[in-house]
């Protein structure tokens, strides 16, 4: 059973390593989906929000890791 537990944790770890990045990515997708629902006629706005949101989440996640390291 411990091996199955390890496998489960490994599989989750495939996708989420840093909770901030995982949450930021999901929020970007949700924001894009909401935008798509509200501005149905302009899907590119949702697309731009998705791309920019993901890039922002990545940048902030990397900056947070560096800042955490600096604080020791």
């Amino acid at each position: 059973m411990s091996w199955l537990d390890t496998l489960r944790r490994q599989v989750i770890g495939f996708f989420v390593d840093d909770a901030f990045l995982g949450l930021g990515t999901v929020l970007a997708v949700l924001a894009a989906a909401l935008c798509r629902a509200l501005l149905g006629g302009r899907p590119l706005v949702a697309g731009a929000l998705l791309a920019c949101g993901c890039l922002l989440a990545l940048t902030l996640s990397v900056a947070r890791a560096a800042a955490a390291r600096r604080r020791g």
Partner: protein
Amino acid sequence: MVLTGFSSGGAALGTAFLASVVEVVEAFTIILAVGTVQGWRPAVAGGLAGLLVLALVVLAFGPMLQLVPIHALQLAVGVLLLLFGMRWLRKAILRSAGVVPRRDELAAFAGQAADLITEASRKNTRLDWLAGVATFKAVVLEGLEVVFIVIAVGAARGLLWPASLGALAACALVLAIGLILQRPLARVPENSLKFGVGVMLSAFGVFWTGEGLGVAWPGHDLALVAFAALFLLVGLLAVPSVARIEAGASQ
């Protein structure tokens, strides 16, 4: 249209190939450590059992993908690709900047061999069994990542064949080189590969998620190139910035 189909097929093949190189090198290091410590029979047996499990996973879940509506599949695969790809890219940026130590195949090899011996003496278990389990776990865990990448970059637009071909070519190449050299493939630029693959998987992730949400990207499949360029730019800009912070921290 032929051009864009060719470009997305090439991107799927290349991404699956490079990602699989990273994963197969990691699995090969463990198999080699086990084979060196305990002989090749348990190492190969565990590896083959792992491949059998992976084949069963593909046979069980593969046909189910056909039943999922294309937009739902694109959305689900896109979000998972974003999570997976940006995780790789983040790690590669932090490794390039010196915040996180780079993976060392020689150290991983030595560590795996030492673990195997320690575990056997601690549990008083047959070393053959532990050796087989170690290679089985390595093949299943690294292989699951390969299977996910192949399905993720291939399934949403009928690109499973080029993606599978890329993964198989990577397996064949790494195993052939590994069997010839008989030592860990420490000179493979693992972090650069991870950086590049992270960029491509993140680009695929934005592309599929957008398509799943009903976004018609300008330039169709060529939008992938634009997303890859954006992630590459952000990654390349992040490395020196983070390295400067890291240098300040270590002074």
